[in-house]
């Protein structure tokens, strides 16, 4: 077991910087999830730690020991690859034994560890089979087995569930979580799936363009996103991001959102430029006056564009007046968009397409962000 430290780590491929001066500490025994969109540098970070890539600058330590000059073999880490990377010509037993053979382990000890890993993952009946004869879930388990059999200091998992169907993903996700807790091995887990990140991670680091946007416990990230990117990335559907019009009335700063002028109880922060509201904070309410200056609730009226029925609840998408913003792939981090307002509503009453609806939420539920997209703590100026 060991903690992992990245100190001012930078990685550039040619002239293109993928990770720029990253600092991160993963505690001993912790499962830390690196979450972010494709190309954000999360897999590169994992490969740097594995020794499959060399950092351009900075230092990486495992258990306090600098490992930059060491090859993958000397780092005592195990990695589960996205496509499992099982050796096709070896049986399940051969795959599990391979890392032990590479370390010159005695046959009896190899046998003992292989059987223990196989038993832990329910692979015993499959020991004589080759990867091509296994289902996706079984292959995934073999990949996990090959990682745990070595008893490494650190586990690295690079999107290990992305090749599984939805049902298996949920099942194996739970198994990975249970296994990691039982073994207590420091784990770095890379995913672009926020559900995996939220359910598995002791802590989650949200990454974008090689920079950690926010690091914290899953609930913390969800409840108090540090910036528009994190707010717009977490949640399904993610937070509705809006660009209100501001006005000062009787010394108080008011914001116009969806036709309603609102003020939060604590006042709208001076630096506020953007607002966000989680879909589950919205409910169906009575339509208010469009110029109701006393409102402590936001009320957005619009027509139902589509409804996703999930059984116990529905996701309702509302076409509403007012500017929404969305995360951008372009130069700026976000852009104005003719987006739809998402609301997570109970299964009844039923809503039809084109139906006019007013969605309301307490103004206190709004998240405020400044010009640069950084979150403004509630009540802060």
């Amino acid at each position: 077991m060991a903690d992992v430290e990245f100190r001012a780590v930078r990685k550039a491929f040619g002239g293109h910087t993928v990770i720029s001066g990253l600092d991160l500490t993963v505690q001993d025994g912790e499962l830390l999830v690196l979450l972010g969109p494709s190309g954000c540098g999360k897999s590169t970070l994992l490969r740097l730690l594995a020794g499959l890539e060399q950092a351009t600058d900075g230092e990486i330590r495992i258990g306090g020991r600098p490992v930059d000059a060491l090859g993958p073999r000397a780092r005592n880490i195990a990695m589960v690859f996205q496509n499992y990377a099982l050796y096709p010509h070896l049986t399940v037993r051969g795959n599990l034994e391979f890392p032990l053979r590479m370390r010159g382990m005695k046959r009896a000890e190899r046998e003992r560890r292989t059987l223990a890993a196989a038993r832990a993952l329910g692979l015993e009946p499959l020991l004589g089979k080759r990867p091509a004869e296994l289902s996706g879930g079984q292959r995934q388990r073999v990949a996990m087995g090959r990682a745990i059999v070595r008893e490494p200091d650190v586990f690295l998992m690079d999107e290990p569930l992305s090749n599984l169907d939805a049902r298996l993903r949920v099942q194996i996700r739970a198994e990975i979580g249970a296994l990691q807790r039982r073994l207590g091995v420091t784990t770095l887990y890379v995913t672009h799936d926020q559900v995996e990140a939220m359910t598995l991670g002791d802590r989650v680091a949200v990454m974008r363009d090689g920079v950690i946007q926010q690091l914290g416990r899953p609930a913390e990230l969800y409840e108090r996103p540090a910036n528009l990117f994190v707010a717009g990335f977490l949640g399904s559907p993610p937070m509705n991001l809006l660009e209100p019009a501001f006005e000062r009335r009787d010394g108080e700063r008011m914001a116009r959102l969806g036709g309603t002028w609102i003020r939060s109880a604590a006042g709208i922060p001076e630096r506020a430029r953007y607002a966000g509201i989680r879909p589950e904070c919205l409910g169906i309410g009575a339509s208010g006056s469009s110029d109701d200056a006393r409102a402590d609730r936001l009320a957005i009226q619009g027509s139902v564009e589509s409804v996703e029925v999930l059984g116990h609840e529905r996701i309702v998408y509302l076409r509403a007046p007012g500017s929404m913003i969305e995360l951008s792939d372009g130069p700026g981090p976000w852009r104005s968009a003719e987006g739809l307002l998402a609301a997570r509503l109970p299964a009844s009453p039923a809503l039809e397409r084109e139906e006019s609806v007013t969605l309301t939420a307490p103004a206190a539920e709004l998240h405020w962000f400044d010009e640069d997209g950084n979150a403004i703590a509630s009540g802060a100026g």
Partner: protein
Amino acid sequence: MSRTPARLRAVLAYALLLAFTLVFIAPVLFMIVGSLKPDELVLAEAGSLRAFLPESVSPDNYRAVFERVPFGAYLLSSMIVNGLIVGLGLLVNAFAGYALARLRWWGRGAMLGLVLAVLVIPFEAIAIPLFYQLSWLGWRDDWLVQAIPFVANPLAIFLFYSFFLGLPRELEEAARVDGAGVLRTFFLIVLPNAKAAFASVAIVLFLFHWGMYLWPLLMTTSEAVRPLPLGIANFHTLPPLQWGDIMAFGVLMVLPVLILFVVFQRWFVRGVASTGVKG
């Protein structure tokens, strides 16, 4: 209505294919049938369809081959020389292809370009300089000198290179993380998953060099180290000229290639397909 032209087209197409097949297979059939006939009938029947019909089958011509020339010695030389070329060639070219496909080193791109450039230089163009070079070294008239210049083969390097590019990189990375170095990764992970490439390169090298004539002619003088192509040329000049015997020699010379192809056909097809498609 539309069925007749379609059927006619099919019949014409098959007729054309059959004609081509006959053109290509006729010399081989002529050789096999001729090898079983008395010598005087081989040329006498050459102008008729009887050339392809064995009427009286006899092994006499085959017996004559072994009696008149040291066929066993020629065969042994060919086997040893080709064995060396294929055996060493697989190792050397696989290493080279792997280094070009996977390892990072200065000048890799230039080296790949050089390999591709060498691909278009015919051997005949360098045969004489190579002859002088090796003569200057005093290296002549043995099996090794017939094999060594052909061990590194640009086509084989390129076939391996394109095959290795198609192998999932994660397999090798997993092996490295599991504790294998470059050589162990190559021998334990890459090699067992590249059987198709090895088989097709083996066949390509073997086919290229089994019929090699010019180089052994330049480099050898003693019958003991001369390969089959020089043997058949020698046989041809040996009086009396017996066409039936020459046909039998030809069949015996082609036989190992045919056996090799039949045995490895599955790998050969797969190898050509995989190297071609993935490359």
